[in-house]
């Protein structure tokens, strides 16, 4: 099991476009990924509803927990998503 703590960069937080890119990215990997905000239970990172329920805003810190063969690669990709400013999502 791998874990990583990441501070959210997109201005609107883990919501809207960044949240949907986050969930899509989770689904590209075999690893099972969970996400938690400080002091709360982790939720399934591949569920848009669960991710939205975190209410994680810009500057908040989240904990990512991944389990599976490609867990490290998944965490690298998810860290990228969470640390990309929102303006850059628009360029895709």
């Amino acid at each position, binding site marked *: 099991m791998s874990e990583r703590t990441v501070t959210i960069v997109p201005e609107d937080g883990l919501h809207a476009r960044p949240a949907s890119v986050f*969930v*899509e990215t989770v689904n590209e990997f075999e690893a099972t990924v969970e996400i938690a905000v400080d002091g709360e239970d982790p939720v399934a990172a591949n*569920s*848009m*509803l669960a991710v939205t329920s975190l*209410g994680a805003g810009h500057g908040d810190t989240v904990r990512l927990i991944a389990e599976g063969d490609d867990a490290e690669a998944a965490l690298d990709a998810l860290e990228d998503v969470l640390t990309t400013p929102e303006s850059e999502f628009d360029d895709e």
Partner: protein
Amino acid sequence: MDQQTLDRILSTELVSLEEPPDEKRAAIEHLLDIAVDAGRVTDREATLDALLEREGETSTGVGKGIGIPHAKTDGVAEPTVVFSRSSEGIDFDAPDGKPATLLFMILVPASGSDDHLSILSSLSRALMDDDVRDRLHAAESPEAVTDTLMKAIA
């Protein structure tokens, strides 16, 4: 969120058990008009534009049959949640491909700082519970809908 705030954000006049149109854009206008009729919207056009702009960014279908169209706009004076449900479901481009049968529209004033995120997260957390979704589908009155949500959120 305390009980009084919730009562105000989601009053029974903002709950409709009538069948909404089965197409997304029309359904969004239908929900918006419920808020307009309840006197919550000061500028319908600006509010609709904000909702559609948000949908254009990524759809608000979050899976498990739930659609949460939302907007932060000066077209509303206070935070407002509108509820409606569809028996056939409406295509909200959800990641799990399921049509939205439970619809929540969240409208917050542009100056409402983080209201919009906190309402969205409280609601999403409540809706992760299968039992809450079942009760919303089964509710036979607007009061049953607001009661279920109050208990789940509070």
